[in-house]
């Protein structure tokens, strides 16, 4: 490990910023990491799938549990790449068994649930310590970066779960119906065995593997970067790097001075002072880099000067008459437009008033639902005529007389906004909205009875008919109208 060859920018960072650095490191080499991942992790997953083929629900759990193993190869690659010796595929491949065997039992058993897994991994894998030494080392590091390691683990598990569920959600619609669980049955009986098909579980496990492949390398990188940041802060790696560079520069500068002195002593001056500085400057300025480029582009400006001059010329005088005419025409046009606008607005002023008024028909309809409702077409005493028709057992005629009479009254006298395209229901709504309370209530009953007789052909009782006739409200009270 040579610090001078480092390929990441060292600087004491905030913890979250170093997590981002890890993401940037992984992104830089994601292609190589994913190839290594496929070659090392996929065989293990295939084995897991074969072993757990009878209970696929356990596969995501097993895949999750074995995560510490997957982390090691990407970490090996990243740690080498960070110090400028990006290993080839076969170099890493050769390390694979060694990496996985080292400390795998503690990693899979009592350290599995550690919240600083990826932050502690570099200390376990890269520093070459053993036993109690590792534990002490991790404790030291965790004093400085432990809490950020925990929150980073939380953040990445959030991302992983969100991405997993998102992928399942997004691809759910593509599943055949036989593979979709019976959600209603599941929530009724909580019987997972029969309601969730195996295909669904397999598909969930596959989605999980895809997402782990995508997210886990970034988690490893983030832990490694956090570890680097920790050591940068407590050991001053960035300062060491700068000092090493400074020393290198100064030693080589000293060497250059010594060589120059030796050369001068030997009388072999290689330095050629320019004879005439001004001439040299002129020479340099002739180079194409110093050429001054100019570009001309026309620009529109107000022609004030020309206007002043034109007034003096005799040619323009004969055109005065035309100018006045055009001006007059223009103002006439403006005036005409304004007048037209005002007239138009006044004519259409109802557009600006409220809607209920605008709905009022200009003329009361004469025919509604195929019935003539003009006052002339009805007998003078509607109620008497209705009673007579009822006595003659012509029930439909009796109710139709009442209904037409009431509509005629409401349309002509009360000016209820009913148009000739309205149905019984529309009429009722309009009357309820605009009519007096007693009239509206009566009209509601009457409409009910009328619809019953006219459309449903159901009999109306004598009592009801009697009530309708007795309570007839559509008469001029006190002869006022």
């Amino acid at each position, binding site marked *: 490990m040579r610090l001078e060859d*480092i*390929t*990441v*920018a060292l*600087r*004491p*960072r*905030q913890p*979250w*910023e*170093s*997590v*981002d*650095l890890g*993401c*940037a*490191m992984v*992104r*830089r080499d*994601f292609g190589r990491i994913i190839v290594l991942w496929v070659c090392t992790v996929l065989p293990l997953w295939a084995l897991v799938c074969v072993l757990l083929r009878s209970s696929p629900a356990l596969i995501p759990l097993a895949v999750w549990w074995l995560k510490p193993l997957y982390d090691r190869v990407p970490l090996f690659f990243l740690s080498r790449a960070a110090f400028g010796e990006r290993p080839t595929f076969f170099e890493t491949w050769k390390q694979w068994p060694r990496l996985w065997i080292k400390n795998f039992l503690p990693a899979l058993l009592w350290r599995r649930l550690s919240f600083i897994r990826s932050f502690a991994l570099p200390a376990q894998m890269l520093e070459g310590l053993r036993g109690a030494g590792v534990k002490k080392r991790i404790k030291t590091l965790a004093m400085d970066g432990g809490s950020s390691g925990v*929150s*980073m683990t*939380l*953040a*990445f598990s*959030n*991302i992983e779960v*969100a*991405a997993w*569920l*998102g*992928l*399942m*959600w*997004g*691809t759910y619609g593509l599943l055949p119906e036989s593979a979709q669980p019976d959600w209603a049955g599941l929530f009724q009986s909580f019987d997972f065995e029969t309601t969730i098909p195996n295909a669904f579980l397999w598909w969930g496990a596959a989605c999980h593997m895809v997402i782990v492949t*995508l997210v886990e390398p*970034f988690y490893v990188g*983030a832990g490694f970067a956090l570890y680097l940041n920790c050591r940068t*802060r*407590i*050991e*001053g790696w*960035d*300062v*060491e790097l*700068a*000092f*090493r*560079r*400074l*020393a290198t520069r*100064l*030693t080589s*500068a*000293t060497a250059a001075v010594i060589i120059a002195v030796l050369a001068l002593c030997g009388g072999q001056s290689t330095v050629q002072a320019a004879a005439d500085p001004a001439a040299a400057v002129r020479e340099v300025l002739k180079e194409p880099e110093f050429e001054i480029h100019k570009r001309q582009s026309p620009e529109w400006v107000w022609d004030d000067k020309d206007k002043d001059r034109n007034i003096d010329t005799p040619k323009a005088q004969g055109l005065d008459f035309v100018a006045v005419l055009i001006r007059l025409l223009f103002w006439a046009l403006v005036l005409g437009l304004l007048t037209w606008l005002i007239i138009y607005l006044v004519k259409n002023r109802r557009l600006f008033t409220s809607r209920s008024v605008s709905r009022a028909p200009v003329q009361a309809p004469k025919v509604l639902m195929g019935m003539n409702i003009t006052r002339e077409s009805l007998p003078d005493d509607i109620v008497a005529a209705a009673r007579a028709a009822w006595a003659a057992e012509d029930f439909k005629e009796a109710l139709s007389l009442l209904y037409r009479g009431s509509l005629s009254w409401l349309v002509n006298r009360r000016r209820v906004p009913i148009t000739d395209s309205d149905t019984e229901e529309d009429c009722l709504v309009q009357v309820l909205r605009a009519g007096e309370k007693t009239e509206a209530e009566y009209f509601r009953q009457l409409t009910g009875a009328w619809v019953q007789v006219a459309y449903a052909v159901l009999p109306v009782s004598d009592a009801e008919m009697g009530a309708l006739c007795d309570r007839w409200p559509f008469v001029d009270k006190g002869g006022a109208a």
Partner: protein
Amino acid sequence: MAAARADTLQSVELADGVEIQLRVAGPAVRSMAYLTDLLIRLGIDIVVAIIAFWLLPDLIGEEMTRGLMMLFAFFMEWFYNVFFEAGAKGATPGQRSMKLRVMSVTGGPVSLAQAVMRNFLRVVDFMPGLYLTGIVCMLFTKRFQRLGDLVANTVMTYAEVPQFIAPHVEIRAERRAPSQVLTREEQAALLQFLERAPLWADERRIELATLVEPLTGAAGVEGLQRLCGMALWLQAPEDKSGTPPPLKGAAMLRS
């Protein structure tokens, strides 16, 4: 070689040839900020719903209250982020809790149009479910931008320059000018050394000071003394007050 280094600072060249560096924030911290915002939004929704269903149904009826609550939830969902991000702080409460803020790629505050665009495109980032597109997009773009950010030309950045609090120690070293002309980076390294040396063990300090023997001309403790003297001289060439100058070097971190 320096150009190929992985870094979290992203340079942006502005139209007038000035280069600025953005401290862009990645998916991990942004997911935490989003989660905080989600909880805050849910909390507000629930509290408002409880108060509304307690007070309003008597006044305006059950259905009207339900309609108003749906309107409220709609505006919370679509305009919560827009409102805060286009505001003076440029960050929602969740983002502020993680010390983040939204910026235009040019380093300025986001305009209302940008805030609207990046937040309305959350629908796209959400697809196919739970921000999968946004997560993948953030992981694989250089400035950790999701699609909404790419369209609106915005980035999420850290709002504060990190402050490192080092213990204040009195340095007994003779102020002296460096024996060579130092570049800006080298001066910054010297100042960093002076500021952070109290955090390190004695052996480490001496080890580091010995590295720059060509500059100090001495190794070991003597070298450390001379190095500290030069760093003090860089802080203030002349001792004016008689007391050591305050160790405020945060600005140098960005060198």
